[in-house]
């Protein structure tokens, strides 16, 4: 509970996973700026983090599809705290794949949040972190980005695009001392998945959020959440396309 002065920015802090990660930072006395699409949700998370021991929490409103507005909020947060040690981007949506197949606009809307919206924020963040010459940018991708599957390739395309973008960014920022962490959760029990049948591979948001925290603290390049998705995805990626295309996945 000793304030350690760490400054943390969480975009999409109303996410169940991100809330748990933010709690881990709050418990060690960090200072946080949390953003959410709706002010009530941001405030609810901020109050929780304060009670758990955060030295200071500010809640700001940010919709990732509003690129100019988002950049302005990042600027505002950066100025308020004089920079950050960690930025975690968690905002995302799981679109209805069948709707995306029927309606191109739905697919584009999903890409807008999950890929374009995040990239729009990563660009100013990368420049600010790069200039500071330290810190860590962490982004929640997904195992779905590792391979396109018929059941969710629109979502997968966005997360896969993010994966590539972050690879390049990691390479670019490495020399300036900034770490880029790509997080790839598997199935996590959150509002995003509440309508799904929850099989044995599901883990709680609490467990996933704490795993995200540890991956950031260890400055991992790519972390599967939890770890057991690494071997699973290794196998999934290794299947030749000519076999893969016949599978019902």
């Amino acid at each position: 509970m000793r304030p350690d002065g760490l400054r943390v920015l969480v975009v999409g802090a109303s996410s169940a996973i991100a809330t748990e990660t933010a709690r881990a930072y709050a418990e060690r006395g960090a200072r946080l700026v949390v953003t959410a699409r709706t002010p009530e949700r941001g405030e609810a998370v901020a109050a929780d983090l304060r009670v758990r021991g955060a030295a200071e929490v500010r809640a700001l409103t940010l919709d990732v599809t509003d690129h100019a507005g988002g950049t302005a909020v990042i600027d505002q947060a950066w100025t308020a705290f004089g920079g950050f040690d960690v930025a975690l981007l968690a905002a995302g949506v799981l679109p209805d794949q069948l709707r995306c197949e029927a309606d191109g606009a739905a697919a584009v809307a999903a890409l807008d949040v999950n890929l374009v919206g995040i990239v729009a924020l990563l660009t100013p963040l990368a420049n600010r972190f790069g200039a500071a010459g330290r810190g860590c940018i962490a982004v929640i991708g997904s195992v779905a980005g590792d391979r396109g599957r018929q059941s969710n390739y629109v979502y997968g395309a966005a997360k896969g695009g993010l994966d590539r973008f972050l690879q390049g960014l990691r390479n670019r920022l490495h020399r300036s001392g900034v770490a880029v962490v790509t997080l790839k959760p598997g199935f996590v029990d959150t509002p995003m998945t509440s309508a799904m049948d929850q099989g044995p591979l599901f883990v709680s948001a609490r467990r996933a959020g704490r795993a995200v925290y540890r991956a950031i603290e260890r400055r991992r390049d790519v972390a599967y959440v939890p770890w057991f998705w690494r071997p699973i995805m290794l196998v999934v990626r290794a299947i030749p396309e000519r076999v893969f295309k016949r599978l019902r996945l």
Partner: protein
Amino acid sequence: MRAYRSWGRYPEATPAAVVPVVWRSDPPPLERARGPLLAYACGRSYGDSCLNDGGVLLDVRRLDRLISFDGERGLLCCEAGVTLAQILDLVVPRGWFLPVVPGTRWVSVGGAIANDIHGKNHHRAGTFGAHVTRLELLRSSGERITCTPADPIFQSTVGGLGLTGVILWAEIALKRVPGAGIAMERIRFPDLNGFLELAAEDARFEYTVAWVDCLARGRRLGRGVYLRGDHAPLERTAPSPLEAQRLRVPMDAPGGLVNAFTMRLFNEAYYRAGLRARRRATVPYAPFFFPLDAVGEWTRLYGPKGFVQYQCVVPDTPNGEAIRTVFDRIAGSGEAASLAVLKRFGDLGSPGWLSFPRPGLTLAVDFPFRGASTLRLLDELDAVVAAAGGAVYPAKDARMSPASFRAFFPAAERLETQRDPRFSSSFWRRVRAA
């Protein structure tokens, strides 16, 4: 979708839909909801009071945010899905403790209020609801009501079995403690008189409870082990595990491992455990209060048919006649009664119209569910309890008759005046059937 069962895994009930309640600022999520509504939290109720067969369960576990903590006065405000485990992890290192805790830390604040739960300190602290200073209720109409102990809607929500709407958050008055330990004493007693003598000393201790071997008869009837203790300094204790299950019982025991024979062995072993008749020690609070939390899903030992818990309270009589009769009937029935928990409730009034605790002796005992014979025994026990002017605990009940319920809880009619017209439960429909 997750499993929506009660702790006893009996009876089974299938909701037509499950709708998560995630944000306290949101309107009631009722666009798609047909049929009666009921909040579901940690599912630590045993019978069907947290079930809603054919209706809509509102899963409130995501309402898990803390709102404020006044470290000077010990006032904690939090959302209703916050578990007691989370609260203890937060407040014990700061020198505070929950005013009342049940036998597991994996219950929510909302569930603790809706059943107005009691703990080992009932004789000093009364029920959980007695320490709630404010709460907010969301009604199906979208109306939000913030209420305090003087309001009828508060008194009907405490112990109200979830029927007055969704509790969004509550403010709880905590108590100061010297540390994370419990200075406890474990005393063996040979029979029910031994229990009654020890219970007469309860006022000197914050926490008291006894484990009784229900299968012992004759001279040994009512023998057991008395536990009593007070908060004590202790440096650090381990925080709760992230989730409820740790060592899991991996699958249903085929046919159930619990029968009258294994239970008799277990009860005997527990009674004999520790060579000395009296032992003192300072232990971390968790194993003192929550011994069963160390094993996840232990209820699976009972096998796929599940089990029922029976908890009653009967008014004090000089010689404990009613409770003697209850023990006699259990031991004579051939049902595989587990170790029973026996405690004397104090005479502090309960704040809820339908709160269960009242002065007298309370007994809780598990039975593997074996169908008609189990049900027959419990009906007999109901008759004994009713004749003595006692009551049976709805949070543990899967089978009491409408007539028994009316006898135990005459205030049920009054609760109807405050019930949210769209809320109901499997339990409520069962005990209110004509």
